[in-house]
């Protein structure tokens, strides 16, 4: 059943591309129906299934032992649910797109289909196919419908993604050749004892390849420019879901297939004695660096863009803890950040920007948005609190788990990550204060248009409600997700849960 999330998305994209190119309203409706259907399937699977469930399995390329295998465990189901949420709200927040709307939703749904496919693949070849399918629609979504330096941002993103996937492809081909070329099934390869010397180079290669898409410092630079250039729905998907593809690949492929790549080298340089420590260090640098850079941005969307880098650093740090609680936290943070980044980009890119036509914090400060656009102001307060990691929202429990997991493995890094989270409070506060609650006089260049802003549409309200409710539910009752995540994490190879070899 869950496989239909993929088929429906691609089918919807094809239908729109063929029949609804010139009818924006039809395209929108079709896209919404498709996204909602996918979402409902995701909810159904999430609510009724537990453990590892096989979805589809048939011969694909028998000559090379490649099968069309789809399966879902708890982690997949959580991320599929996130994709469903993000895709529905993304369609809602793109409701106002008029120019080439048919093509927009066709590319959009093709991207969604690829993302569903990655989360559900149980064969490495299939996984990679879906992973690359997701690259091309992103380019066109940004280059055609984007804003600030869209062609630059789009090309940079496409090339970074393709570079990452090229690294993954090398590792994949090598793993296929080393293991004898019989299969690319993930659980079968997981059983294969790859030589340690092989894992030592394959792990960093594949991990870095995926980590590019997860926004790991210093390979994150595509993320802020890409997010800023992208149209709102694409930013929501990019930050919300596509970056999770990277983190998911790190966990599902790099760490699961090559766990001994994280063993110590036997020597250390400046205290870094293994790939694991190195990547944890890069993750922590990302957390702090993203937060500090977000603190000094003047473009509202860049603030959100860098905050994504910071939050994804927490996911990567959680992965590197190699403990059950840290991995739990990392997956939970993927979900939480997916929801919150989506909300933030929707607030800034759609609700505020489409009405004020500026994202410059100084210009916004003169508009007194708390009075002229109270919906946006209060929404940002709520989302900002969630993003800071206040208890009651999804971010809190996720960050807490990551930090607890990291404490035993990397005490110093944990403290630095804590500093990054505090800076996170500061940049959110600053952006909120400047953009919405500033008492700067409305003099100088009068930016405020005389007529009041357009009212908030039903589509925006529905999208906001959907995402905010999801964040609150997870924040108040994280068990709902953890009941799915924890068994799946416990089923990972033992080496990923035992704290690693020291």
């Amino acid at each position, binding site marked *: 059943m869950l496989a239909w999330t993929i088929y429906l998305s691609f089918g919807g994209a094809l239908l729109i591309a063929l029949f609804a190119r010139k009818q924006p309203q039809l395209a929108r409706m079709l896209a919404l129906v498709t996204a909602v259907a996918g979402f409902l399937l995701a909810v159904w699977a999430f609510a009724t299934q537990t453990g590892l469930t096989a979805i589809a399995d048939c011969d694909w390329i028998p000559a090379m032992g490649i099968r069309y295998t789809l399966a879902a465990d708890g982690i997949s189901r959580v991320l599929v649910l996130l994709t469903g949420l993000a895709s529905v709200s993304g369609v809602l927040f793109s409701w106002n797109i008029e120019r080439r709307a048919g*093509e927009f939703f066709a590319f959009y749904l093709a991207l969604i289909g690829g993302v569903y496919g990655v989360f559900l693949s149980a064969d490495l070849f299939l996984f990679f196919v879906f992973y690359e*399918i997701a*690259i091309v629609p992103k380019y066109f979504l940004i280059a055609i419908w984007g804003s600030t330096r869209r062609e630059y941002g789009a090309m940079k993103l496409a*090339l970074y993604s393709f570079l990452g996937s*090229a690294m993954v492809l090398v590792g994949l*081909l*090598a793993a296929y050749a080393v293991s004898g070329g019989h299969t690319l099934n993930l659980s079968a390869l997981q059983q294969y004892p790859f030589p340690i010397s092989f894992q030592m180079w394959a792990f960093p290669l594949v991990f870095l390849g995926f980590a590019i898409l997860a926004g790991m410092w210093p390979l994150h630079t595509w993320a802020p420019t890409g997010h800023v250039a992208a149209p709102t729905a694409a930013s929501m998907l990019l930050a919300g879901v596509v970056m999770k593809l990277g983190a998911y690949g790190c966990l599902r492929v790099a760490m699961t297939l090559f766990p001994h790549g994280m063993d110590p080298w036997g020597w250390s340089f400046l205290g870094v004695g293994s790939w694991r420590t190195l990547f944890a260090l890069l993750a922590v640098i990302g957390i702090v660096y993203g937060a500090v850079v977000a603190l000094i941005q003047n473009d509202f969307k860049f603030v959100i863009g860098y905050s994504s880098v910071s939050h994804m650093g927490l996911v990567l740090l959680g992965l590197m803890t190699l403990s059950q609680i840290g991995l739990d936290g990392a997956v939970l943070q993927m979900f939480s950040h997916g929801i919150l980044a989506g909300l933030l980009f929707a607030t800034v890119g759609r609700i505020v920007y489409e009405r004020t036509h500026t994202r410059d914090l100084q210009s916004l400060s003169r508009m007194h948005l708390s009075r002229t656009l109270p919906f946006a102001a209060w929404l940002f307060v709520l989302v900002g609190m969630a993003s800071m990691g206040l208890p009651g929202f999804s971010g809190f429990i996720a960050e807490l788990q990551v930090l607890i997991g990291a404490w035993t493995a990397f005490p110093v890094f944990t403290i630095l990550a804590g500093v990054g989270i505090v800076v996170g409070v500061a940049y959110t506060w600053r952006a909120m204060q400047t953009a919405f609650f500033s008492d700067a006089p409305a003099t100088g260049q009068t930016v405020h248009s005389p007529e009041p802003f357009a009212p908030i549409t039903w589509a925006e309200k529905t999208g906001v409600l959907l995402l905010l409710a999801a964040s609150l539910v997870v924040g108040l009752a994280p068990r709902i997700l953890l009941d799915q995540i924890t068994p799946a994490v416990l089923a990972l190879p033992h080496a990923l849960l035992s704290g690693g070899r020291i």
Partner: protein
Amino acid sequence: MNPVSYGDIFRILTPETILEVVSLLVLLVDLAWLQRSSQSLRMRTASLLGAIGSLLSLLWLFLNHATISAMGGALVSNATVAALQAGILGLTALVLLLGIRERFSRNPGEYVALVLLATTGMLLVAAARDLLLIFVSLELLSLSLYVLTAFAKARAASAESALKYYLFGGISAAFMLFGFSYLYGLTGTTYLPAIAARLSHMPLSPIELVAFVLVAVGLGFKVAAAPFHLWAPDTYAGAPAPVAALIASGSKVASFAVLIAVTAALVPAFGWTLALLCMAAASILLGNLSALVQTSVRRILACSAIAHAGYMLLGIAAHTDASNQAVLVYALTYALTTVGAFAVVALVERSTGSDRLDAFAGLSARSPMVAAALLVFLLSLAGIPPLVGFWVKFQLFAAVLQAPATSVWGLGMVVLAIAGSAVSLYYYLQVLKRAYVTASEDASPIDVTGLESFLLVLLAAAVLLLGLFPGLISGFFTML
């Protein structure tokens, strides 16, 4: 010495004979009945006849095939050869049908006859296992292509590119023949399997190395591998569109087939592998890097052809059954994709008069179907799944890594190739960016006939379906 069996020779050569007869027929029809007809009617008749002839020959191949050899093994026919020949014939038919509205020539009969002669050369090359026969059929192919390149007599660029192509081609053919003569002198035979047997017992001598390098020059020229690639961008840019498509498709397939056959004879000596690897590395680097700065789409396709030749050379150097098979599949599907890409270029040229990147602006608004087809072709060339270009790359590189002989260089070269294909996405996206992102002031739909639409959709569907169900390709190879 066995008596020569003319029956076997004729059985193997029936497809070629059909082509020859049809090419004479085309000349006759054009000369006898159509001299007073309009130019477009003459072109239509000739192209249609030529395409029908290729398809007849293809049909014969499907119905009658056997694993036989003639002339003491110099000519062979087996499933792989038949599949290659069928692919070449199909490509020729496609090229002729897609070029049916071209008006570059005042002598359509001669044009089609020469295309069929070139195709005959390709078929012979694929079946030849003897140095002399290889040389003769390669020359038949090359000489026809030189003339065809110059066929647009009204355009100076066509004559210029033909001259370049001819000079480079003539010199490299001379080198190759010289190399063949050394091989003959070393081994005393021109039959490839016999050469392999003699070479494997011989220590590596300087003269052998010289022979390898000379042969590499000739064959490297045919597949447009660096450093013998200099003719490719000019010829692709100057030749009439269908001829450029033919050079990029059928001629490539045939040249890779002969390269595999020659490699089978020479591979016991490591010097040959080394020569192939040097050409592969240079082609991947030069092809991809020089494509980055091109502003003409035909030149981009030429540079990408050089890069693709580099990838395929890796498979040839690995030289296992799996990698040879992967190279042939790669060459066939690459040719199919390139024919499609050239068809789109020809359409755009007819409507805008240029093949520069800017001429493609707003293509998606002007003709969504043509733009979508271009998207499929170029992304397949870039190796994006689920299109066939990804699958064949995967198969090729996997085969290279699994080959026992490649443990020294396999991983490094594969990394280079994959890095190269990551770079290639940039220039393919440059074209697609014009087609999809850039708006154009001219929004009139470009002129596409029903036949052209049908063929483009067919090609794009083939590229997609072969990628989704790669079993179809190996099915094609075993069917015959």
